[in-house]
């Protein structure tokens, strides 16, 4: 067990210093992630708070050998996904899905210089301009180490659609970053 998981275990056993350590370390990162997926600050805070509840109640078998930070990112993404589903921003309607997937036709090779000089507010702004499904796919890929099949399962779409969705999301983000002022 890594030291992170040892700290988590101690916190779950009621050790206050361990809980404080984890909360201080994980909250800023979780909030940054939630802010990329949810437009409103209060909703992002609620998602992070709910995520910690899940973290305290997690079972070791749930973690599948992931690093604690990655595992927690997965929880945060799932909480945000639930929020988006409740607000009907993650429709599984095939026509709407196709529309979102095709919403941005990629222009290869653009945006690398914008990615080089990336900061959190610019990234949040660029992410929030993407459709919810593209945001989810990107977050799962970048922060939860999810591959195409896992993204497909999570978003309830087939692997080919997930592959296209992710590809277009990356291109749209690169383009969005170029258009977002520093």
């Amino acid at each position, binding site marked *: 067990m890594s030291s992170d998981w040892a700290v988590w275990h101690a*916190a*779950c*056993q*009621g*050790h206050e210093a361990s*809980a*404080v350590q984890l*909360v*201080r370390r994980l*909250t*800023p*990162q979780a*909030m*940054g*992630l939630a*802010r990329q997926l949810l437009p409103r600050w209060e909703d992002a*805070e609620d998602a*992070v*708070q709910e995520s*910690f*509840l899940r973290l*305290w*109640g997690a079972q070791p078998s749930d973690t599948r050998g992931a690093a604690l930070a990655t595992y927690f990112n997965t929880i945060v993404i799932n909480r945000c996904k639930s929020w988006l589903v409740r607000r009907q921003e993650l429709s599984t309607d095939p026509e709407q899905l196709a529309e979102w997937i095709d919403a941005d036709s990629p222009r*290869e090779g653009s945006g*690398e210089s914008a*990615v*080089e000089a*990336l*900061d*959190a507010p610019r*990234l949040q702004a660029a992410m929030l301009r993407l459709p919810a499904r593209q945001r989810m796919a*990107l977050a799962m*890929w*970048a*922060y939860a180490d999810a591959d195409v099949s896992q993204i497909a399962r999570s978003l309830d779409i087939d692997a080919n659609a997930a592959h296209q969705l992710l590809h277009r999301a*990356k291109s749209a*983000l*690169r383009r969005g970053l170029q258009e977002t002022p520093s």
Partner: protein
Amino acid sequence: MNAPHPNPRDTGDEALKARLRQTLSQPADDTDALQARVLAQWHQFRPASVVTTSAGPVATLQAAWRQHPVLWTGALAALLVSLWVLRPAQDPVLEELLQPDVLTLISAGEL
């Protein structure tokens, strides 16, 4: 023999992923209030077994007994045996006075 060149798109994707992760680890906006709420929630939901009341001698004894039950049982048994062995010898005069006399036995109908 040349080593295979990585696909430029894969390299670009990995760079993008690395930059996204790096951005996430940058200090975020003020999250102190949120952290306080999360910790308050943790206090509320932490396991009951560790929320032991350590106030007062009874709670201290209970906690000690829970930690080493065999040791404490042995110590208690040893104390009781010692008290039995070291009990004061009875006073013979008092013993005689406590014996029922013949008149009392007659009045009680036992003789």
